[in-house]
């Protein structure tokens, strides 16, 4: 069956996320050089998921080229009662608090995307910082992006719930 823009973006997001999970297991198994690759796939997956949901289920347009889709998505899905149930939050207020607590990390993941020629830490391309040229594979990213941290574990649970609600197998 041919894809819509939505299903194509979400399908690719799922594939990126599967790659992320594979690499994360190896990273946590003792391959520290994989951190940047994990973050790269996580950033790409969340961006494509969010962009996919900006397109209608049937005959939707190609998602716009925006850089803040995932943070806006995390705001907007506060209103999804279906996702609220999937995240096992009893009330809309609890779900709002749950997502508000994840927004700073959503912004951090979103900011991993390299933007134009701006030099900033990112998991994909080398950059310059105070005269030093740095490379992602050797860079120590923020501890907030550590996959063992409770907030990150919660974020990954949220993303998994999003795939159950918006993913290619969602009913």
């Amino acid at each position, binding site marked *: 069956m041919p894809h819509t823009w939505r299903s194509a973006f979400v399908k690719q997001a799922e594939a990126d996320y599967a790659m992320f999970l594979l690499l994360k297991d190896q990273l946590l198994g003792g391959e520290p050089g994989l951190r940047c690759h994990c973050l790269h796939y996580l950033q790409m997956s969340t961006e494509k998921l969010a962009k996919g*949901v900006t*397109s209608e*289920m049937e005959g939707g347009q190609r998602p716009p080229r925006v850089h803040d889709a995932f943070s806006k998505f995390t705001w907007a899905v506060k209103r999804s009662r279906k996702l609220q149930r999937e995240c096992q939050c009893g009330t809309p207020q609890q779900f709002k608090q749950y997502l508000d607590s994840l927004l700073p990390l959503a912004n951090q993941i979103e900011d991993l995307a390299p933007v134009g020629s701006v030099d900033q830490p990112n998991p994909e391309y080398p950059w310059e910082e105070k005269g030093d040229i740095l490379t992602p594979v050797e860079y120590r990213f923020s501890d907030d992006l550590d996959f063992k941290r409770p907030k990150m574990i919660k974020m990954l649970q949220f993303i998994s719930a999003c795939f159950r609600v918006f993913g290619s197998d969602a009913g």
Partner: protein
Amino acid sequence: MISEIELAARRLATANAESEPNLEAVYLFPSDHQIRLVEVDRSMSSSDMILPFYFPPDPEGGIPFPSALALIRPEEERRLSPPDGWGTWDEARRIWPEDE
């Protein structure tokens, strides 16, 4: 006569307002097949476009229609163009808060 879509939209808007203290207004844009809402929320970051997210129907949650939701800041109300195919601001109806 209020359509089924508008009734569901009003339920959705009221539920959203109950959980979001920063919500100032909810607009319903016309559609015969989906709920199209723009919510004015002063806690949103500013943007140069209205970016809607499209959600599947949620009969279990009392919303039997597909829905689309976009969030904007108060100063963006009537300044940013509605998404393609949504019509104009003049065609939108404010459904929350309800007029006195």
